[in-house]
């Protein structure tokens, strides 16, 4: 649902053009059939295929062709067609010899339906007020012809209610569309403003969530390590980690930070996460097809790498074990990565709501990439986290964040 005045006007114009074609064509065809039914018993086939009916058929063909005219020529062609059709109507009026038993007025159905078809054609003359203006012109010219030529050809002038009804519909439609456009303008603008505001806030919320993940995975983890470390000289690995964090914070755009953007191959961000975990003191055994990760879109790969990094970081900090296993499983539409440890385990339902690691840095990250996370854990038994990501990027997933 994307409202917009031009979009809706274009749709209505397309609808009116199509509707007018059907209306005009069917009116001409069915009036021709009706006239033939009346004339056939009296005049035979030759009398039916009169120039009048030929005119009607030619007009129907003209209507169909008229719809294929390029837009820039439409107005010129519409004026030309208007003149030709009026001439055709005059010819039709002059050559249609209705049976003496029929309604001998210019409001007879033989003329009325032709006039209605002309009005319908006028809907194709353009947008906004053009259909109404052309329709009024058609009615004026047709009725002038009927009034001037009709009596000379043996037809009394008659008020054609159906013709004026058709004109009323076209004029009403033009007025209705104009008023509707005017009245819908204010709510449309309000809706557009609301959509813009929502998009902006949503973009901001996504950005906040991404920034929170980066801060959680770097600064917050670093502070947690410092808070639990013994006083004394810091290990080179920790110093390097703190330096990397400061380097990241000094980068003008985190998405373009070399440490985040560059993905070493093979295994990419996942392999880098394994290296970081190894540096932090746990042995990670890697199984499966690490190369399957190379086929992933960069955005998905980064999301997966960030999530694996957080899972391994959780093992380092909470599992109480120095070993873990990482298995890469290629699947039809994606790749699964299973991280298993035989450490302390936990009960996911009892995780404090202020813990951001599993919810924000693992689950939110993978779900934003269109993937799924399943956690199998029990206290004292160990933990298995199964991350599954698709082979195609989710629309709207922007760059990397870890």
């Amino acid at each position, binding site marked *: 649902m994307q409202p917009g005045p031009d979009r809706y006007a274009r749709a209505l114009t397309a609808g009116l053009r199509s509707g007018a074609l059907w209306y005009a064509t069917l009116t001409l065809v*069915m009036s021709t059939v009706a006239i033939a*039914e009346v004339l056939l018993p009296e005049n035979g086939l030759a009398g039916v295929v009169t120039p009048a009916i030929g005119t009607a058929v030619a007009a129907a063909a003209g209507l169909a062709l008229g719809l294929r005219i390029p837009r820039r020529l439409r107005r010129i062609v519409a004026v030309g067609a208007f003149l030709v059709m009026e001439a055709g109507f005059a010819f039709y009026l002059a050559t249609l010899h209705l049976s003496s038993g029929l309604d001998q007025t210019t409001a007879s159905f033989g003329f009325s339906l032709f006039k209605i078809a002309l009005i319908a054609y006028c809907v194709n003359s353009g947008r906004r007020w053009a259909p109404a203006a052309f329709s009024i012109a058609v009615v004026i010219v047709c009725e002038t012809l009927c009034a001037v030529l009709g009596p000379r050809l043996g037809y009394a002038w008659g008020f054609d*209610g159906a013709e004026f009804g058709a004109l009323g519909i076209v004029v009403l439609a033009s007025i209705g569309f104009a008023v509707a456009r005017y009245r819908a303008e204010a709510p*449309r603008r309000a809706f557009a403003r609301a959509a813009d505001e*929502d998009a902006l806030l949503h973009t901001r919320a996504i950005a906040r969530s991404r920034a929170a993940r980066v801060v959680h995975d770097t600064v917050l983890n670093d*502070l947690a390590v410092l808070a639990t470390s013994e006083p004394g000289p*810091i290990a080179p690995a920790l110093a390097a980690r703190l330096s990397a964090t400061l380097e990241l914070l000094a980068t003008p755009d985190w998405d373009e930070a070399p440490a985040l953007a560059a993905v070493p191959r093979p295994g990419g961000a996942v392999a880098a996460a394994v290296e970081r975990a190894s540096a932090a003191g746990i042995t990670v055994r890697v199984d499966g097809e690490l190369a399957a990760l190379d086929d992933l879109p960069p955005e998905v790969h980064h999301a997966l790498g960030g999530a694996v990094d957080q899972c391994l970081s959780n093992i380092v900090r909470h599992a109480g074990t120095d070993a873990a296993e990482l298995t890469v499983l290629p699947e039809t539409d994606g790749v699964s990565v299973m991280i298993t440890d035989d450490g302390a385990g936990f009960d996911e339902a009892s995780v404090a709501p202020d813990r951001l690691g599993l919810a924000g840095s693992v689950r939110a990250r993978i779900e934003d990439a269109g993937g799924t996370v399943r956690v199998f854990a029990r206290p004292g038994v160990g933990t298995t986290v199964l991350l599954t990501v698709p082979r195609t990027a989710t629309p709207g997933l922007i760059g990397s964040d870890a």
Partner: protein
Amino acid sequence: MMQLEDTLQQQDPLDAAESGRLFAIGGACLALLTAIGVTAVEADEIASWPLEIAAILLVALAGAAATVTASPFRAPFRLRSHVLVLGVSLLAFLLDELAQLGANGLVHDDWGLVTVPIFLFVVAGLRPPQEVLAGGLVAAVVVGVTAAVVSQFVALQVPPFARASVAMTSIVAPACAAAAFARAALRRLARDPGPRAGITTVADMVRLSVQQETIARLEAEVVPLLSEIIADGELHDADGRRARVLATGLRAALLADLRRDWLAEAGFAVTDRQGYAERMNQEQRTAIRSLVAALPLLDPDRPGIAVLVGQDLEAVLELTIPVRIRPPRAALAPVIPVLRTVLGHVDLRSDDHAVVLVAEVPVER
């Protein structure tokens, strides 16, 4: 979310709401004026005035039904409304023919052959094209059969089949035109994505500004601490304690940021234990923002209240928006079809103090 029908009213509820209502009002007026005008001009063809008056009243009834059921407050326009409007207008045509029985000069100039097409055009923007065509064809059959049956009582004699053809032409052609109008307009609407919010151009700026805010928060204490530790190459007792305090504060700040959902940003006090607000899609959020924007005199002294409760993929949202005066119906009218399209059942009430929206909110996950 309810299943959207292939109608202009539901595919573009904001733009179609106004035109649908205006066409219903305009069509009702035109049909009634046509019936009265033609009756006045051809008064000598009326054999039974009570029947004719009843027929004209039925046209008025069909117009009233179209006007009421096409109102944005009753959106969407349903099949039963279509049947009601068309059925009553056909009944009016039948009564008009009966009223002229034995005195009618022609069938094709009777007002029923104008009023029925008018109502066909009115419903074209409100119902799916196939249904508009089906309704038109049914109407054409009714009109054709009626014309053939009354043909022997009409003064000007033509073959009954020819008379039925002419009468049916007056219905079939507009029915096909109305259906073709709806179909082509819907196709064009589907093909045309319409204007997009120009947000993508500022997305990078937003992202960078959030990053800058985050860095500014860290530069006050965290960055100096990390820099000092790296420079010293040693961790002191005080550093550990400071790191613990900073971590606690930082975690709380991050959580507060993440829990600030869009309803809270919009100024509502939110109760949403299951996080349904964040599972609402962009169209649902925009429709609710539009409702808030449509209220001219919000009361800034009282916060709005949003309560979301539900189960699985279905929640009920109760939104209380304080206002200083009761908003006019015209302000709410354009938003209601939009709300009904993107949400499920919607109930909107207003008084002098608040506008209360209760809506079913279907969410994906």
